């Protein structure tokens, strides 16, 4: 039974079924906890901690000094905005979309099909507090530049997977893209140029609407059942965002569906690889029928620089196995053996299930499973269910067997220990600071009331103090980061040279021993390791510098209370906030020519005549191949991390400045103080942004 009336109302086919379940006020979020199809109960603890923190903050903000109340608002806003993201990836037709729909509890929400279908990275923003009337959707179109970049910055899964013909794939993708553009132009007429770069926004979210943007549509099939609009804008849509009310969910959650890789229409693959750059937590969906092919390995290699515990492998479609009870353990053993053999993340969790079973459980259509799937289900149930579970609701049992609850647990656990833990840590530190500031403020107020001659610094003095502190601390931090950066670059350079020397020496040795007819290969793992360690050294150094800067800032602010406010020993001990974490070096997963044992390398080899020519070209090749990786590592990782650390310092100072300025301005009426404080905060924020260039 469809439990989420907000979605059911959009779903024509389920209208009758769900009518009775609809609450009287159609716009009231449904009561939480009603559904057996909850799968994120693992986030309950995190939600409780966030709620506690929110209560703490509300308590602090209640009747607080306006400066503190403003900071509280910001923090509570951060808590509310918390939205961890999980990205579903996998080969075409593995069942990603079906799984996403099941996770949302709405089969049929996103279009799934037997043919290659999803064509757009689709983000489902699930929010417990969103009212049905607030559900909305936005579809962004590519701009011309983005289209071009799609190719130049796209992934090379083909090469990672050692797919035949991978070396010529880019040219093919380009041709497909041109054809696609021409098709869109034909289909959309003059409107086409105008649409590029735009966004379509709607105050609703229906299946018919979604279908226009995110799925391929048939161009070989004339049929009344398919709307003419299906896939109308799919080719030019860059991303889709849907905001969905999900009252049972403990915290916000974003689930990202992506186009499958290894489709012959390779643009879908490019789109997905592009989207993976920002992905922190991935579910890799495999088909039980062919678990872990070389293309899957290519995809795993691509994301393997994501911390491996943030990769979950879900082997879908076990209902299609002839004998799941016997075959699932075989499949698991074979996956593990392959991961081990290829140095892939072996501790990745491997789960088994069926989006199809989940879908039928939600729809309450178990009678429709079909003979084979039903038989597989019964066998699987017998093997999987302890006797104690007998007599359970059949839908709940099937839901359990579908593997979706286990998937939910795996995701929840990773969020709770990752993004969730970081949020809690940050907010706790900020809350404690607020408490301390508040206490200081209260002390000052008592002093003033008691007629103790309070020595409040003038606003302009405070502003000057903060400007000075900020300039000095930032300069110091920048200098240390710059030094670290220089060291990073020279380390990268050295890594290059060392690798090149070693590889060339091996090449010469090979040429001496075997001549040029025997093709030589050299494993580039060493280079990756050197680059990775250079990055790690940089991250450590930058983190140390950041920590020192934040620590100094906190201490100086304490000193400010002590000296300028004349609080002496009663001055609050302000705590530095935790550091942001550095992004994993995804770029290192990119293929370079040396990874390619196949035709590409052979061709390179055969084209060259003479040892010296080979050695020279080899050196140039290594340089050309690794330069973009190093560049990405420098720009997207090293510099981005440095910028984040810098922003943390500025943000911290800005918040403190707002509070301190507010407290010092005791004489002004509250409303004005609030404005002042928030203005001060905004000023420093703008300044901070200007500096970090964000």
């Amino acid at each position, binding site marked *: 039974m469809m439990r989420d009336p907000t979605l059911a109302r959009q779903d024509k086919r389920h209208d009758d079924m769900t009518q009775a379940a609809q609450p009287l006020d159609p716009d009231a979020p449904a009561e939480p906890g009603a559904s057996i199809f909850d799968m994120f109960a693992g986030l309950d603890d995190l939600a409780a901690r966030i709620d506690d923190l929110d209560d703490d903050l509300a308590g602090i903000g209640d009747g607080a000094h306006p400066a503190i109340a403003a900071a509280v608002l910001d923090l509570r806003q951060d808590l509310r905005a918390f939205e961890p993201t999980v990205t579903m990836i996998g080969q075409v037709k593995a069942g990603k979309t079906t799984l996403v729909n099941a996770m949302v509890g709405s089969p049929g929400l996103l279009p799934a099909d037997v043919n290659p279908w999803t064509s757009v990275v689709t983000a489902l923003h699930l929010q417990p507090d969103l009212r049905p009337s607030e559900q909305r959707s936005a579809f962004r179109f590519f701009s011309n530049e983005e289209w071009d970049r799609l190719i130049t910055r796209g992934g090379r899964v083909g090469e990672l997977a050692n797919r035949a013909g991978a070396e010529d794939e880019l040219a093919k993708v380009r041709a497909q893209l041109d054809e696609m553009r021409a098709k869109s132009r034909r289909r959309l007429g003059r409107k086409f140029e105008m649409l590029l770069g735009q966004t379509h926004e709607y105050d609703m979210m229906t299946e018919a609407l979604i279908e226009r943007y995110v799925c391929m549509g048939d161009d070989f099939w004339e049929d009344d059942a398919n709307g003419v609009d299906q896939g109308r804008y799919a080719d030019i849509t860059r991303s889709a965002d849907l905001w969905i009310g999900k009252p049972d969910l403990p915290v916000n959650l974003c689930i990202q569906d992506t186009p499958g890789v290894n489709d012959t229409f390779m643009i879908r693959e490019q789109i997905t690889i592009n989207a993976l750059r920002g992905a922190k937590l991935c579910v890799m969906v495999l088909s039980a029928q062919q678990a872990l092919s070389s*293309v899957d390995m290519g995809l795993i290699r691509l994301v393997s620089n994501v911390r491996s515990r943030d990769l979950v492998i879900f082997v879908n479609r076990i209902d*299609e196995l002839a004998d799941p009870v016997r*075959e699932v353990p075989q499949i698991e053993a074979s996956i593990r053996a392959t991961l081990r053999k290829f140095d892939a993340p072996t501790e990745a969790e491997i789960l088994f299930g069926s989006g199809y079973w989940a879908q039928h459980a939600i729809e309450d259509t178990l009678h429709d499973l079909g003979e084979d799937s039903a038989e597989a289900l019964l066998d699987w149930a017998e093997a999987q269910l302890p006797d104690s579970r007998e007599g359970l609701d059949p839908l709940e049992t099937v839901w359990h067997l579908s593997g979706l609850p286990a998937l939910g647990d795996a995701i929840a656990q990773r969020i709770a220990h990752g993004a969730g833990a970081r949020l809690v840590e940050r907010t706790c530190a900020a809350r404690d600071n607020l408490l301390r500031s508040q206490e200081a403020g209260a002390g000052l107020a008592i002093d003033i009331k008691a007629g103790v001659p309070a020595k409040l610094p003038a606003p302009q003095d405070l502003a000057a103090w903060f400007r000075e502190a900020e300039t000095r601390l930032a300069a110091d931090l920048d200098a240390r980061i710059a030094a670290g950066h220089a060291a990073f670059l020279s380390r990268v350079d050295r890594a290059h040279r060392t690798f090149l020397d070693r590889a060339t020496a091996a090449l010469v040795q090979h040429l001496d021993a075997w001549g040029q007819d025997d093709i030589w290969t050299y494993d580039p793992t060493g280079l990756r390791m050197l680059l990775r360690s250079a990055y790690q050294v940089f991250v450590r150094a930058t983190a140390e510098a950041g920590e020192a800067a934040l620590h100094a800032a906190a201490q100086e602010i304490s000193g400010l209370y002590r000296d300028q406010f004349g609080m002496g020993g009663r001055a609050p001990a302000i705590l530095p906030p935790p550091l942001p974490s550095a992004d994993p070096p995804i770029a290192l997963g990119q293929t370079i020519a040396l990874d390619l044992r*196949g035709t590409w390398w052979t061709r390179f080899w055969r084209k060259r005549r003479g040892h010296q020519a080979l050695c020279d070209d080899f050196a140039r090749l290594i340089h050309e191949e690794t330069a973009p990786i190093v560049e990405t590592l420098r720009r997207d990782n090293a510099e981005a991390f440095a910028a984040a650390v810098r922003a943390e310092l500025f943000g911290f100072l800005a918040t403190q400045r707002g509070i301190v300025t507010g407290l010092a301005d005791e004489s002004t009426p509250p409303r004005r103080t609030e404005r002042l404080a928030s203005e001060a905060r905004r000023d420093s924020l703008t300044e901070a942004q200007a500096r970090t260039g964000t």
Partner: protein
Amino acid sequence: MTLTNKSRSRKPLVALMGEFSAGKSTLANLLLGEALSPIQATATQVPPILYRHGEAAAFRTRLDGTQEPLDPGDLRSATPGTTKMITIQAEADFLRACDLVDMPGTSDPNMPADTWDSLLPEVDCVLWCTPATQAWRQSEAALWERVAQPLRDRSLLVVTRMDKILTERDRLRVLRRVQQSVDGLFLDVLPAMLLPALKAADDPQVLEETGVSALIDRLAEVIDADAAARQQTVRLVEAAAQPLTRTEPSLVQDAPESGAGQEMRVMPRRVVMDGARTQRPRHEAGGRA
């Protein structure tokens, strides 16, 4: 690897190819009417298995080219690391018309990518198996592109696991889409439900409904045409392999009476039916009642 005269007869060579777990061995066993090729849910990882007509026997060809007898019940002892090829002799009717090689699956990260490069020049017809649920992906298309056009023109794309696509409409849509994307790359695209066909053993009606009869008929046409072309090659030195057109069933019905042609009734035991061959199901449908 070149197939020596010792292991090869003069018959056309049909190769079962495709990604791992696509159903090649299932199809082999169906054609041979006997469970000879190992079948499993994960990649099988055995060397190519060549089937030829003769008194039941098996041997393996080591990497160095030497041969030794092999226990047919223990094919797995011959791993790709030590064995170039397994040869199995069987009395299957199918093998009167052609030799059959069941190739290791492609896209298995654990197997070298080029096992079939050396075998391909000897192959007269490929049955490329692709599972309907994830049919015709780039990793297949890219490999197939490297096959020479004349061989492509004599090869069939078998869309297996059709029984896993549940509605007639979806079966047709998958088939249409695949046909569209392989246009010109295969002689024909044929849907098949191999496991149901295998389970139903000798039921001719099931063979019809699962698309297996149509597949065998189409294969017979190709082999006959190939054999005829060979005969011509003997007579006319300049004759080159001609791409077949789609409308030449006559070769099957009026098989030549002499030479290679006389063995040309390409029918596994269980498929031989009295005159029932005229009522072929339509290729595209392959529907289950």
